């Protein structure tokens, strides 16, 4: 097991045992700023290496996936989950979008196994963050919600995670690998360590979701495990169709499987305030995040191996 995952478990266990361990929220913020910038810059360095236009078709396909994924889970939440419309829409948006933390874990996972992947993947993180939010708002409010949509898109675009990811991308693009070499001792070399600390904190937060989970019962649990697996298959198929390497397909599968717990919750609080945030966070943070980190990523890796072997692509 990767050591960063051990930190996550330490956080979960400390949380469950009601330990006094707390990370100051300012440390959490510093860690997420550093991780987002580092991820962005790494992607930007890579973007600088290849003609941007060649990526356009892939980018379009990925955005399309971001619009489709929430449409798939919404009916399930509504009919099987019997959730109110607003809640179903909000949860669908969470699962259609992505979790940067999970992305960092899959990058670490592949890195420690020395599996290559298309290094411009951070671009896809950015692209996947927003569409699901728009779909979620329309699902909750109907198409009449035009002004709301514009406001929301605006707010998400200017939210912390997009600004740092996109900012990092651009800086990486402009400065290139050599230009950023001097920043490596803060952003790149300690990346795994920063991720470990971040996961320790996320473990503590995950543990605090357990009581909510208990209250809302079995459906959330099942949804939080099955949705990522099915979404991963979608992502995997798309990765394959786009001609990505096995590693790239694993990353795209993981992105599809991951559920947002930063940008989307914030957007939903503003745009669909009647949705209960406890519900969507319990699912995305309390179930799906740990599932992906502990079991999902190795599973998607195995899926990809099988699939690429079958199709003779690997």
């Amino acid at each position, binding site marked *: 097991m990767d050591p960063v995952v051990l930190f996550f478990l330490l956080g979960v266990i400390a949380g469950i045992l009601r330990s006094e361990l*707390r990370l100051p*929220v300012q440390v959490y913020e510093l860690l997420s700023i550093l991780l987002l910038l580092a991820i962005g810059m790494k992607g930007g360095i890579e973007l600088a290496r290849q003609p941007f236009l060649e990526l356009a078709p892939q980018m379009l396909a990925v955005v399309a996936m971001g619009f489709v994924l929430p449409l798939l889970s919404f009916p399930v939440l509504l009919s099987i989950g019997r959730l109110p419309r607003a809640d179903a829409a909000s949860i669908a948006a969470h699962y259609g979008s992505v979790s940067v933390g999970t992305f960092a874990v899959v990058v670490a996972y592949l890195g420690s196994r020395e599996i290559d992947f298309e290094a411009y993947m951070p671009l896809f993180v950015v692209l996947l963050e927003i569409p699901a939010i728009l779909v979620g708002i329309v699902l909750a409010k109907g198409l009449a919600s035009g002004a709301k949509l514009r406001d929301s898109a605006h707010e998400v675009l200017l939210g912390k995670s997009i600004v740092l990811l996109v900012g990092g991308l651009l800086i990486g693009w402009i400065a290139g690998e050599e230009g950023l070499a001097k920043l490596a001792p803060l952003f790149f070399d300690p990346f795994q360590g920063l991720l470990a600390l971040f996961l320790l904190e996320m473990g503590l*937060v995950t543990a605090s979701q357990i009581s909510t989970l208990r209250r809302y019962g079995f459906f959330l649990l099942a949804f939080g495990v099955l949705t990522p697996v099915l979404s991963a298959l979608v992502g995997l198929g798309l990765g394959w169709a786009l001609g990505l390497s096995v590693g790239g397909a694993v990353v795209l599968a993981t992105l599809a499987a991951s559920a947002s*717990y930063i940008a989307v919750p*914030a957007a939903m*609080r503003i745009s669909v*305030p*009647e949705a209960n*945030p406890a519900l969507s966070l319990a699912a995305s943070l309390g179930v799906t995040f740990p599932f992906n980190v502990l079991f999902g990523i190795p599973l998607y890796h195995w899926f990809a191996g099988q699939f690429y072997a079958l199709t003779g692509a690997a």
Partner: protein
Amino acid sequence: MEQHPRRLLTVVTESTIESHLLRDMERWGAHGYTITEARGKGARGVREGNWEANRNLRIEVVCDDVTADRIAAGLREHYYDNYAMILYTCDVDVLRREKF
């Protein structure tokens, strides 16, 4: 020393809605506000303040009675049902009334 009666309105709520809330409160007549970071517990459960989604703000506005009522009414109408929020007011004396 001459003192002037005013009302102090205190709101404790989710930090996510900060910018919207402040814009609305100014629209409803607040001339200023003071914010401190907070955490707490209430009907919507524990808000530990250890990451984005569960931070609280404690916002104070010193204003006259009419404004306090307008802000309270606005909050009740637009925020109270959907957000973790409490609100209370109390009587205070201020030094220079023209500021509030």
